């Protein structure tokens, strides 16, 4: 074992491999930070080039690119409210309010620290605990996954919406839109209106770019109509506004740690993904916070939580890949191609046949996490400078990048149309205070819930008791019910408290919404 490790170290820890990882992180965070472009695109563009390189160099670079882009997305989410990557949608919820308060530097750094801690946590799990985690992940069959997704849907539905009803409207709309495409069980067409492009469903990336980025450009264009030369950011002279204080970091460590566990869990389960992880991370931070009312208004923990969670997905996403040959996340599936083209067939024999390469890769991954502390720093500076550019110059460029990003993923003009459609829809959603983020998470979770539910019922022969007789399924069903009860009780308590306040003091507040 020791010999394997030392051989692995000598194979992996070369200047060239470090350079590969660093280059990956740089490219990933750059493309991630540019609204419209994203990491999946970067990996897809890079992968054919890497086929002629050494496996470690290539894989370290691709994984670096993945991690970099997951972090990079937070830069534009925080600074512009236009998430550079889908994973960063939850980060914008509190990141952008912080920017508006002049605390952009603080939010960016907190996102970075949380990302690095999440990534180190997840890579360490990958290195030391892959087999048991993979075994745990396998226990999740259709019935268990159906209940897990139901639970996720219950806790994150409506995130970012102003009221419960508006949250539910966004959620329902998201689930409806997700039914477009082929029925997952019968493969018959649903709501495709004879368009082959719609057979594959509405493209997630194209939709996201429209819904999250283009809509924000439209909103801010409207705001800036009167004053095209207005700058986006408020400047603050307080030095604490551009750094994370020790107390803030210490206060967020619990949240970061819980998010890292959640993120790793979501990463190890095939198909759950980093967007779900980020939203669940955000939700746990809000629920367990002493000041849940501060969330959505610029709470620093609301930036730390989703960033730790989405970065923790990366390392853990490789766990089922190296132990079972099953990629845990979308980007992991693409990276699987890099393993295969170098003759490393992913699966249980990988560790037996190529232990040195695999352990070398693990070491490289953990070390490269620390590169992440340094490499994105210039991007942060550049980002803060970019938003000091007047909107009239900035937004046309972002719109052009949205078009390129939507087109670039599959070189399909149809995706551009999807992007524009959702850009306009997102504009109205924001106007009506219906949360685009809530629509997005429902769009992702809705079809999963459908597929797993129908598969589980196929397995049981139509008997719904499968959801209570399987222990893990029952556990998540109970959690889902518990979450509904908890939320209802809390809402009622809040309402009473609010009414109490209204009655005792301010007669003027009577017309105000209390939810």
């Amino acid at each position, binding site marked *: 074992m020791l010999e394997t490790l030392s051989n692995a170290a000598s194979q992996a820890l070369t200047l060239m491999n470090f350079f590969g990882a660093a280059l990956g992180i740089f490219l990933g965070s750059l493309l991630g930070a540019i609204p419209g472009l994203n990491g999946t695109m970067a990996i897809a563009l890079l992968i054919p080039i890497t086929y002629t390189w050494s496996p470690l160099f290539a894989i370290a670079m691709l994984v670096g690119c993945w991690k970099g882009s997951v972090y990079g997305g937070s830069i534009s989410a925080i600074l512009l409210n236009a998430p550079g990557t889908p994973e960063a949608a939850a980060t914008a919820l509190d990141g952008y309010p912080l920017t508006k308060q002049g605390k952009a530097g603080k939010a960016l750094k907190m996102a970075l620290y949380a990302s690095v801690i999440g990534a180190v946590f997840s890579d360490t799990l990958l290195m030391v605990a892959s087999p048991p985690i993979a075994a745990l992940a396998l226990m999740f069959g*259709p019935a268990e996954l159906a209940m897990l997704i139901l639970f996720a849907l219950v806790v994150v539905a409506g995130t970012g919406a102003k009221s419960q009803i508006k949250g539910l409207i966004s959620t329902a709309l998201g689930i409806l839109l997700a039914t477009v495409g082929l029925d997952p069980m*019968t*493969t018959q*067409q649903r709501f495709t209106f004879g368009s082959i492009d719609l057979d594959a469903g509405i493209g997630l990336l194209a939709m996201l770019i429209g819904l999250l980025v283009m809509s924000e450009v439209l909103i801010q264009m409207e705001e800036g109509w009167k004053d095209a030369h207005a700058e986006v950011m408020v400047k603050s002279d307080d030095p604490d506004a551009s750094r994370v204080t020790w107390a803030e970091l210490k206060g967020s460590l619990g949240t970061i740690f819980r998010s890292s566990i959640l993120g790793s869990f979501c990463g190890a389960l095939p198909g759950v993904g980093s967007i779900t992880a980020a939203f669940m991370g955000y939700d746990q931070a809000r629920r367990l916070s002493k000041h849940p009312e501060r969330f959505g208004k610029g709470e620093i923990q609301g930036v730390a939580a989703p960033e730790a969670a989405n970065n923790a997905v990366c390392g853990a996403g490789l766990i089922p890949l190296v132990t079972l040959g099953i990629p845990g996340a979308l980007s992991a599936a693409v990276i699987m191609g890099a393993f295969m*083209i170098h*003759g490393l067939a992913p*699966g249980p024999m990988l560790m037996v046949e190529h232990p040195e390469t695999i352990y070398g890769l693990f070491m490289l991954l953990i070390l490269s996490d620390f590169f992440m502390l340094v490499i994105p720093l210039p991007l942060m500076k550049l980002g803060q400078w*970019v938003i000091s550019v007047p909107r009239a110059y900035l937004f046309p460029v972002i719109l052009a990048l949205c078009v390129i990003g939507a087109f670039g993923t599959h*070189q399909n003009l149809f995706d551009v149309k999807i992007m524009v459609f959702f850009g306009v829809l997102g504009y109205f959603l924001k106007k009506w205070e219906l949360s685009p983020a809530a629509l997005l998470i429902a769009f992702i979770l809705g079809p999963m819930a459908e*597929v797993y539910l129908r598969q589980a019922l196929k397995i049981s022969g139509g008997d719904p008791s499968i959801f209570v007789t399987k222990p893990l399924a029952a556990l998540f069903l109970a959690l889902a019910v518990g979450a509904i009860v908890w939320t209802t009780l809390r809402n009622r308590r809040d309402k009473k408290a609010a009414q109490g306040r209204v009655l005792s003091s301010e007669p003027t507040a009577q017309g105000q919404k209390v939810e």
Partner: protein
Amino acid sequence: MGRKLLTVLLAMVMALAIAGPSLAGDYPSKPIKLIINFSAGGTTDTAARLMSSKATEVLQQALICMNKPGAGGTLGVSEVARAKGNGYTIGTCNMPAVAIIPQIRQVPYKPFKDLVQVCAVMPYEYALMVRGDSPWKTWEEFVDHVKKNPGKVTYASVGTGTTNHLVTARIGKELGLDWKHVPFQGGVKETAALLGGHVDIINNTTASVASSVKAGKIRVLLVTSEDRLKMVPDVPTMKDKGFKFSQISYMSIVAPAGTPQAALDKLSAAFKAACEDKGVIKACGKLDLHPKFMPGKQYQAMLEQLSTEWGALLPDLGVKVNK
């Protein structure tokens, strides 16, 4: 100055993002676009990219691989069908996208009119597999188990209307098995469900689970493609067990109808060379992929026959047919 720098930087990023094949007269005089109808990282993608590097050498022109995955491979194939038949757009194709899916649902191409099969390059190898720690050591033992437990056993496929589903359903029909079909979205989730014990048996490509088979986590009970597998040479095929059909699907290269015969011949020769190249065979072998060349005309005839054969069976196998 700052503004200029920003403009230059953004222009560079845009240029990078839209930099595609440059368009430039004897065929081929410019790069050829190869549309891969499955996603990057899968077996079709890997095999196509390994072969295209050799084909590039023979053609003296680059093959530019692009992935257009989705809807059972029909999205990529329809993109080829839509392209000009000049030999500069070709794609990969799987059997169901041509012979089966167009009978199940509407597709915007006529499989035997809008497309021409250049050649077949690799048979997909399939098998019925169970968990390594399951009690069934042979196919007979498993069939016995299903018969003793009617309505309890589940089999998984990579989706309704795929060869994985249809062949397994037909086996069940011929043997009179009462078992349940659970479709999954692709081989990855199907394999995870088997390994986790959530379904009893799966029909999947063998290359994608080679590592698990070698490690004893998955046991191959019956080879459903035509020939025995190099990976598990002792496992019988359907033919060995007396079935009159098997699971035939090749990865083939298709071109839009109207592509000049001379171009088709050159492409076919290039892919033949790739299939027979030692380097390609070795690289594919590591992944348990085994290229085998078949002329386009021969494969086209095979597809037409498969289309008729399976088309007649679809309603019996419980698949809704598009009228």
